[in-house]
């Protein structure tokens, strides 16, 4: 029995980086920024390797079919690694040079990234669960990373309690599926479940998986942790939680539901459609009522999970590829938006109220430019990436006959423009109520935001260069 290590190269590189960072972290004499740079370099190499494997088209299973490396998982690797690199870049200035415990921060981020990669390549419900837990446990700690801050501790605690609750349901779902199909291997489940398998327990198991994923990707009504956690967690971690883990949740969600459970599609499409409509609508409506920009972004990210779910509800090849494409775009623009929030720091900490952004267009033109670009993209204005992303998602749904879902999505897009543009209007058309003393721009944050901005514009103008890899990477 030989193991094809080449297939697992990205994961191995992340593990190696993890070990290296852990060793460096042991020496107090070494500057803590080294840990961050090591993380970035490791992720960049893994990213390069993933893209290379994606282009070569390396595929295969390993560990007795437990891990399935294919174009699909490699594409998601790209999403995770891009998000991780961006998050580390925006974290470096956010944490500052003085924080002694930074090593752990980057270690946990690496561990969470590894968990995500496992979720995308898991060919077995147990492996998916393992990845999910690896990712989640790291995130619980990261959310409570600011020990001295009450809000951060509260965020970590809430996330842990509710996350454990959801994990229980997820595991129960796996058990029921095992009961129904007699296996936990995704391809074997697919062949074990016939079209007319309608055992209530199997269906309940399927639904409990929806609950588990629904919690991780924050679907209504399993979303309520998200705003509290995003608000309390360090902003860089809020960016992280909202991006990569959500993509990872969808990676496993799409693979399990469209591969393992494809024969009972008609059963789960009902619930997925309802959840998609609910998530988009509730996410956007509540976002309107928010005054805190981090909470607003939290609800906006809930709504975006709803848009991605439309891709799953479409349940065709285009649906998968457009969901993948959308997740790539979403990760970049959402991290960018959170990065812009970090950029707007004052002496008192972060300025999180939307009213604080009044008049920034003239006082801090670069910051306002980044923020505007990201928000326009989130709202889906052409020619930004957000527009093409939504376009393909809705098109795939139209093709599979989900007209009503698309109409709801379109109405929601219009609603969402209201609260995104409100920030833009505040920045360019309102006079500031009080003079806020903003920090000078930190250089690395600007680098990260510039990368995100280039990504958003580039994907918006040249969508096919990014969409076609997604289109050839679907597992269907």
């Amino acid at each position, binding site marked *: *029995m*030989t193991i094809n290590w080449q297939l697992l190269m990205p994961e191995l590189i992340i593990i190696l980086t993890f*070990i290296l960072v*852990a*060793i460096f*972290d*042991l020496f107090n004499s070494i500057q803590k920024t080294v840990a961050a740079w090591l993380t970035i370099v490791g992720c960049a190499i893994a990213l390069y390797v993933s893209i290379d494997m994606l282009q070569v088209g390396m595929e295969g299973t390993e560990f007795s079919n437990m891990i399935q490396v294919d174009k699909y998982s490699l594409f998601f690797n790209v999403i995770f690694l891009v998000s991780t690199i961006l998050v580390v870049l925006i974290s470096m200035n956010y944490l500052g040079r003085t924080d002694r415990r930074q090593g752990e921060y980057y270690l946990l981020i690496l561990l969470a990234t590894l968990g995500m990669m496992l979720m995308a390549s898991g060919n077995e419900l147990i492996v998916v669960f393992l990845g999910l837990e690896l990712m989640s446990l790291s995130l619980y700690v990261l959310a409570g990373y600011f020990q001295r801050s009450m809000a951060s501790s509260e965020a970590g605690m809430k996330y842990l309690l509710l996350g454990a609750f959801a994990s229980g349901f997820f595991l129960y779902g796996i058990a029921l599926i095992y009961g129904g199909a007699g296996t936990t291997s995704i391809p074997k489940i697919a062949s074990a479940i016939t079209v007319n398998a309608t*055992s*209530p*327990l199997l269906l309940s198991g399927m639904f409990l998986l929806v609950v588990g994923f629904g919690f991780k990707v924050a679907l209504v009504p399993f979303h309520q942790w998200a705003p509290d956690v995003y608000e309390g967690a360090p902003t860089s971690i809020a960016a992280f939680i909202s991006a990569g883990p959500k993509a990872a949740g969808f990676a496993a969600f799409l693979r399990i539901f469209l591969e393992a459970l494809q024969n009972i599609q008609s059963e789960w499409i009902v619930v997925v459609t309802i959840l998609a409509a609910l998530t988009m609508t509730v996410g956007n409506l509540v976002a309107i009522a928010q005054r805190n920009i981090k909470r607003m972004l939290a609800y906006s990210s809930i709504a975006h999970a709803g848009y991605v779910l439309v891709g799953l509800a479409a349940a065709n090849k285009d649906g998968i590829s457009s969901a993948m494409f959308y997740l790539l775009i979403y990760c970049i623009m959402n991290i960018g938006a959170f990065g812009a929030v970090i950029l707007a720091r004052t002496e008192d900490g972060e300025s999180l109220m939307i009213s604080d952004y009044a008049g920034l267009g003239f006082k801090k033109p670069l910051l306002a430019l980044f923020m505007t670009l990201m928000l326009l993209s989130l709202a889906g204005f052409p020619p930004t990436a957000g527009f093409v992303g939504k376009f393909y998602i809705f098109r795939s749904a139209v093709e599979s006959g989900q007209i009503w879902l698309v109409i709801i999505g379109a109405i929601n897009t219009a609603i969402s423009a209201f609260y995104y543009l409100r920030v833009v209007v505040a920045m360019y058309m309102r006079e500031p109520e009080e003079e806020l003393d903003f920090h000078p721009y930190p250089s690395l944050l600007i680098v990260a935001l510039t990368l995100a901005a280039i990504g958003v514009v580039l994907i918006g103008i040249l969508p096919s260069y990014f969409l076609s890899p997604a289109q050839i990477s679907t597992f269907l």
Partner: protein
Amino acid sequence: MLTDYLPILLLLVFAIGFAAVNLALTHLIGPKKSTQAKLSVYESGVQPVGDTRQRISIRFGLIAMLFIIFDIEVVFLYPWAIVFKKFTENSGYFILIEMLVFIGILFLGYIYAWKKGGLSWD
């Protein structure tokens, strides 16, 4: 489908019934003579000291957690030792190197926990 689980349900009902009936019976039939010694807190025969609800330092939890982590990892050595001989016949000493890597990582974790002050009380 659900009928397949009927025996389990029956077993469940039987188990609960058995426990409940027994408890009820002892409660009803058994003589009740309470004395001072019988009502006191049972602590393996030692004289009870103070209230049972005591706050315990979180550090116990930390140490216990570390212990469990390393304990469980070491348990992994047993199955490895059992199949060791069979694997060496087929693929040489690769399995030994694997375990060395595993132990190495475990050791790194141990040093990490140590250096980070996970093992010190203060």
